[in-house]
């Protein structure tokens, strides 16, 4: 019995009128957890009831704590008839189960009804007292943290990356149970919402168990999906990467580090100065080597940077932290490396069943080589899940697919797959399972237990890299491009040429990957969103025939998407794709494929050749003219695009934006995973001449199609950039203005007998128009970049195509010249100093608020930072104690005093005076520009159903969906605010299933969203400004 859940219902507001006679409501609340239910008193005749209930206490197993949501139902009391439900709130209490996440949930939650939407708000307080359970055979996994973010969360560092975890839970879909015939739509929707909430709780618990088994304490890149298989059931599955994370005591790194990181791999060299617990964050991006340790003091002579040993960091500080070695090699890591076992090598990876990683960005040095995208698809026929407790079939299906991926990766000479993801598309009883990732060779050192006290956010890897220079490694800027596979034994035909950066090894002519652009990659110019879109008609059929038909079509579809991508890439004058995501959706009479990626020009790869058009019928003059006019058009476009994206290849050396390292260190040895073939430059350079050998023949319809899609893509309007990755190469100076949005469009194809060609055109236009609309809407943010443009396509019905986009628009400062760029770097470097200053200053300043905040704070060099902070924060708490600032019960055994103290101090900053609704930012990225994330509060994973039987009255399908999406946003924001957060990062809308029946005036929509709730603090704009730690005032997103 290791947990006590306590809930208190404080008040309600804006309740709907339930009693027409009095225009008021007699509201009361039921609080349910598991099978226990409590009720508040009825608060008569009010739309703003004040219940102020007692604490309702639930004594439960932690297993239940993980699985079950807290269910709060607001009802209207009715003396004579049954009480009417006003709506519900489901609260996932998982964030309260980890000592490092939130400690209390307190705030206004929208009361949600699946038929009426949001109906007022309710103020709730939830706490958990957790007793430690040391039972080895326990079924719970409390304390394992989950992150949607597909990189090591800022303000954490990974001690070990354990590897792939997956789990899958199945159940019957309540919508298809017999009882659904007799219950109301509301009851059915609620049953579904509740079931999915339960299942995802269970799934997380099970994954957590696996993580604990592996010795980890967190899952990063957690990706959970629902498969609504209709009749045959409901599948909830999840994948992720198990890690052992450790909190950086100094609070988070800023994103600055992340996006400026592009420029120079060694910019974060100051890190080692501070040691592991350094309260600073590696956001500086100064020029490379000179920025090493010593200069720091000169920048800020008044600061003391002496190491403060932290009591909280229990881990690996075994090694005496010798001072930073001068120059390029960090002596620091040598210690742990020596101590720890080294017997594991690459075999460590191979021993694993699936050496997969859901992460898309990695610490430097982690990724050695990237070979290319590996993907596998399979078409399955669904049948009823007979025994929900043994989801073997589904498991087996995925197992198969993963094996295939693994073997693909092997064929590419790689032992791991990174940026791995899985998805499904279901139509009737046919299901397409897809898995894809990027085959890669990793630095095994990062995967060994305990070996790695270095792997953390970007900076640290560099240290590893340098200290491991005796080991296999490649130059930082181009190393990952080098082909890992055997040149003489290539798995597929490719043209290899010497690396343009180091000229030592071979690189492919193009590189496709599913990961984010590595921060140290050398890129020329800017990137852009590249999409391939394709529709294919398919005969309507049933069962096995249908499945066969689809599987026959699939390879062609993929091939064509690939060709399209390649063409468009060349048209943009680029040579690599990142964040590639190929979606194939199946409908009754068509297959829709959409591939999105961000194209960049990697300096290491050879310059892409042009595209040549060839006609097959010679001697036809008009035809030749036609061909040549197209050719001209294409050539013009390429030139224009190069201009647009600032790709000036002739002067590569100067144009590698933000890369102060002129030339990466040459390395003679090349790491090869499988083969030891020659990596000399002696062979004939055959590939050079092939550059322009990319020929399109326009005689067959396919080519015409290709051409068409090539030339109809409108360029992004001036001032706009777009990408589907986290960061846009070439843009560093973001402003704090961000605007996350979701846009959904559904097209009806009225024309019954469309050809493939016509269909393609329509689909293409749909996507193009959608993009144009976005650009127009966001025109006030110019110059701006749409990041993480995430398109999802679906074919919900016979003649419908649905496209949903979620992205974030971020504006940046215009001065993008080299100088400005450098200035920005210097600036951020200065900021870094200011930052550390703040960090040190924080406790002091709070301690003596009356004192000048800018007083030199070098006075406490030898103070134990953590306890100091702790003291201060509790002191602050006395000052700002508020009703909802509730500490955990004393029974709880906290792991260390520091996180506790820290969390309290943050907690006390919670309530923003003034505005009653705090601003919550949302972004699909893992960072917030100009701010640093100081705390992760827990994962947000919510599932909503909305249904209406009065579609017309609610403004038609658009009105209905618009309101629903707004409601979903509102509920996400409310939950984050209640956890004490002010932003959601790595937000994504995983599912948006929309069904309508206009004839019956009905519609239904299911939305699943997820993300990480965080607290961020804004970097003050002026240097030396007060740290805002005590008042994380969220700044507004820019108004358009």
């Amino acid at each position, binding site marked *: 019995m290791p947990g006590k859940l306590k809930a208190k219902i404080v008040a309600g507001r804006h309740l709907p009128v339930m009693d027409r006679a009095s225009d008021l409501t007699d509201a009361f609340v039921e609080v349910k957890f598991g099978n226990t239910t409590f009720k508040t008193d009825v608060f008569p005749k009010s739309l703003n009831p004040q219940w102020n209930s007692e604490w309702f206490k639930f004594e439960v197993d932690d297993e239940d704590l993980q699985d079950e949501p807290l269910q709060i139902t607001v009802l209207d009391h009715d003396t004579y008839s049954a009480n009417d439900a006003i709506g519900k709130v489901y609260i996932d209490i998982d964030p309260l189960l980890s000592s490092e996440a939130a400690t209390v949930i307190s705030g206004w939650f929208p009361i949600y009804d699946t038929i009426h939407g949001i109906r007022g708000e309710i103020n709730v307080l939830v706490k958990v007292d957790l007793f430690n359970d040391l039972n080895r055979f326990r079924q719970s996994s409390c304390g394992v943290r989950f992150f949607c973010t597909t990189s090591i969360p800022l303000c954490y560092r990974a001690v070990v990356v354990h590897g792939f975890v997956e789990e899958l839970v199945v159940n019957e879909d309540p919508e298809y149970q017999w009882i659904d015939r007799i219950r109301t739509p509301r009851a059915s929707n609620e049953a579904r919402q509740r079931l999915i909430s339960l299942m995802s709780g269970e799934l997380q618990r099970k994954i957590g168990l696996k993580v604990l088994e592996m010795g980890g304490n967190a899952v990063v890149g957690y990706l959970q999906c629902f498969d609504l298989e209709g009749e045959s059931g409901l599948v909830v599955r999840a994948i992720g990467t198990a890690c052992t994370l450790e909190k950086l005591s100094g609070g988070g790194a800023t994103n600055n580090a992340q996006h400026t990181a592009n420029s120079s791999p060694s910019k974060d060299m100051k890190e080692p100065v501070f040691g592991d617990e350094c309260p600073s964050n590696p956001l500086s991006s100064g020029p490379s080597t000179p920025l090493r340790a010593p200069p720091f003091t000169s920048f800020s002579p008044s600061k003391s940077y002496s190491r403060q040993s932290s009591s909280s960091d229990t881990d690996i500080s075994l090694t005496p932290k010798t001072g930073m070695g001068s120059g390029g090699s960090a002596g620091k890591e040598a210690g742990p490396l020596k101590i720890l076992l080294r017997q594991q090598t690459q075999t460590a990876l191979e021993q694993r069943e699936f050496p997969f990683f859901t992460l898309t960005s990695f610490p430097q040095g982690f990724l050695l080589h990237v070979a290319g995208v590996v993907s596998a698809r399979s078409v399955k026929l669904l049948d009823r899940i007979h025994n929900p407790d043994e989801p073997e079939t589904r498991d087996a299906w995925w197992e198969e697919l993963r094996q295939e991926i693994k073997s693909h990766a092997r064929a590419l000479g790689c032992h791991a797959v990174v940026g791995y993801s899985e998805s499904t598309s279901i139509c009737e009883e046919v299901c397409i399972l897809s898995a894809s990732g990027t085959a890669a060779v990793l630095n095994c050192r990062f995967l060994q237990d305990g070996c790695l006290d270095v792997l953390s956010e970007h900076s640290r890897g560099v240290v590893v890299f340098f200290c491991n220079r005796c080991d296999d490694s490649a130059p930082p800027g181009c190393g990952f491009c080098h082909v890992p596979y055997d040149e003489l034994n290539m798995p597929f035909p490719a043209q290899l040429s010497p690396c343009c950066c180091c000229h030592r090894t071979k690189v492919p002519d193009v590189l496709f990957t599913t990961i984010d652009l590595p921060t140290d990659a050398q890129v020329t110019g800017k990137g852009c969103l590249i999409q391939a879109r394709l529709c294919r008609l398919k005969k309507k059929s049933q069962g096995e025939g249908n499945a066969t038909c689809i599987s026959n079509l699939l390879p062609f579809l993929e091939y064509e998407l690939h060709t399209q991508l390649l063409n468009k890439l060349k048209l943009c004058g680029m040579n690599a794709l990142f964040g590639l995501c190929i979606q194939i959706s199946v409908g009754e009479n068509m297959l829709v494929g959409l591939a999105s990626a961000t194209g960049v020009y990697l300096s290491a790869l050879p310059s892409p050749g042009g595209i040549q058009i060839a006609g097959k019928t010679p001697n036809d003059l008009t035809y030749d003219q036609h061909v040549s006019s197209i050719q001209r058009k294409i050539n013009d476009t390429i030139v224009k695009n190069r201009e647009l994206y600032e790709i000036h290849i002739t002067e590569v050396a100067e144009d590698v934006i933000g890369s102060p390292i002129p030339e990466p260190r040459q390395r003679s040895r090349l790491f090869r995973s499988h083969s030891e073939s020659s990596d000399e430059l002696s062979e004939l350079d055959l590939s050079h001449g092939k550059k322009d050998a990319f020929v399109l023949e326009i005689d067959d319809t396919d080519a015409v199609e290709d051409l068409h899609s090539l030339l109809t893509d409108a360029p992004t309007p001036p001032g706009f950039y777009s990408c589907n990755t986290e960061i846009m190469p070439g843009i560093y100076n973001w402003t704090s203005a961000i605007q996350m949005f979701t846009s959904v469009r559904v097209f009806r194809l009225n024309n019954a007998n469309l050809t493939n060609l016509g269909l393609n055109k329509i689909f293409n236009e749909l996507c193009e128009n959608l993009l*144009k*609309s976005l650009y127009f*809407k966001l025109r006030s943010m110019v110059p701006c970049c749409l990041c993480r443009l995430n398109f999802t396509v679906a074919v919900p019905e016979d003649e419908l195509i649905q496209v949903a986009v979620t992205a974030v628009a971020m504006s940046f400062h215009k001065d993008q010249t080299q100088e400005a760029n450098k200035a920005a770097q210097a600036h951020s470097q200065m900021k870094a100093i200011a930052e550390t200053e703040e960090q040190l200053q924080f406790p002091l300043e709070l301690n003596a608020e009356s004192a000048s905040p800018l007083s030199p704070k070098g006075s406490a060099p030898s103070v134990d930072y953590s306890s100091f902070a702790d003291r201060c924060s509790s002191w602050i708490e006395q000052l700002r104690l508020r009703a909802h600032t509730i500490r955990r019960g004393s029974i709880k055994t906290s792991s260390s005093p520091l996180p506790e103290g820290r969390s309290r101090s943050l907690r006390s900053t919670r309530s923003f005076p003034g505005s009653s609704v705090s*601003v919550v930012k949302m972004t699909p990225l893992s960072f917030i520009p100009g701010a640093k994330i100081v705390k992760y509060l827990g994962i947000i994973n919510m599932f909503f159903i909305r249904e209406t039987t009065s579609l017309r009255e609610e403004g038609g399908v*658009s009105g209905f*969906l618009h309101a629903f*999406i707004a409601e979903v946003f509102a509920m996400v924001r409310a939950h984050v605010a209640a956890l004490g957060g002010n932003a959601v990062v790595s937000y994504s809308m995983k599912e948006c299933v929309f069904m309508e029946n206009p004839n019956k005036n009905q519609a239904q929509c299911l939305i699943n969203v997820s993300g990480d709730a965080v607290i961020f603090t804004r970097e003050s704009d002026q240097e030396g400004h007060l740290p805002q730690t005590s008042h994380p005032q969220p700044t507004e997103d820019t108004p358009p």
Partner: protein
Amino acid sequence: MSVELDVFVGNTTIMDQEVYQLWLSGYTVGDAVKVRMDGGVLDGCDASAEVLRSDTMDQFRTFQMCERLLHNPAKLANQLLFQIPPDRQAMLIDRYYAFDDAFVREVLGKKLSKGTKKDLDDVSSKTGILLKSCRRQFDNFKRVFKVVEELKGPLVENIRQHLLLSDRLARDYAAIVFFANHRFETGKKKLQYLTFQDFAFCAGELISHWTVGAMDNQLEDMDVDLDKEFLQDLKELKVLITDKDLLDQHKSLVCTALRSKTKVFAEMEASFKNLSRGLINIAAKLTNTKDVRDLFIDLVEKFIEPCRSDRWVTIDVNLYLTHYINSAHILDTFKHQAVWNSLWDELFKMLTDIQHVTVCFLVKMGMVASGASAAAEGTRATAASSEEPVPVHPTQFTTSISFSFRDMLNVGCRAWPHSGSQAC
């Protein structure tokens, strides 16, 4: 092929002020798109009309969803559905509650009932304001009326607090509510020359001097209702016209004071009794609700028009009324000290208000007259040109009016430069 569904939802709600205005003005999506196109919003953007249409639709939908919240502005601040920065919220509210002067002029003083609402299409066709917009404005009046109806305390402050309106809007709404409550007649042809702002000024004067709240500070403040006791007391003024001696005495006092101070002295002397009778009669009848309604039309008919026909200018009227009130005061202290003393303050208040109001009306008259025969009016206007109209000039007066008045004076000055020295 058709777009079945098209939505865009931002975490921070995106709102274009221009589109908001179009929506408020009652445009349909199609018309709004046309207006935006003509306004050149697409210039410099590579976007089609379709894109514009989609954007307009989205925003219109957003506004529609917000409308519910705007009906209760306090809700907008702590609702969770839309994340709108505070300055945007203020903009939304202010624009939503803004109204067209042309429209308000039509319904000012009318009962805010269903019947009036039904007639809105007439108002719409008369003013050229789209019916949808008329309805919104009318509903706003009604809503504000309902909110403050039952509330105690100063009207303007109530409106500002409960509806989060700006100072100016709150004052205007106070006027609307006040007029609607007393159903003051404002629609007669003779009153057509007055703008809403003129009436709003009058309402402000009446609210601050004639209402229960004004009389009895603090306690049971009710700004909406006129003070019955005060109106009852006004009846006592009748003695000024019924008592022949008093009337004569009053006249001589006023005339003595005015002699040689105005060009229209002869006319003043001649019409003194008529005017005094007119004024006192209006005051005495105010206990009657019907007559309260006719306050403004009576003032115009019984006082302002005679003045106008005698070619008085504002300054003359102002002088006349000042002395009228002062002399009456002297009169009283001579004769009925004991009985009258308590009433004089109130009487004074009433007359001062009437003075303010009539002056205000006359300013407008003067404008009309000057438009008709500038030269003739110019002569008279110059008589007063050296005296600033500011002391009596209502502060709430819209600047445009005072400017035009001043312009008029300037014209006069230029025409008759030598007569500027004739000051009182």
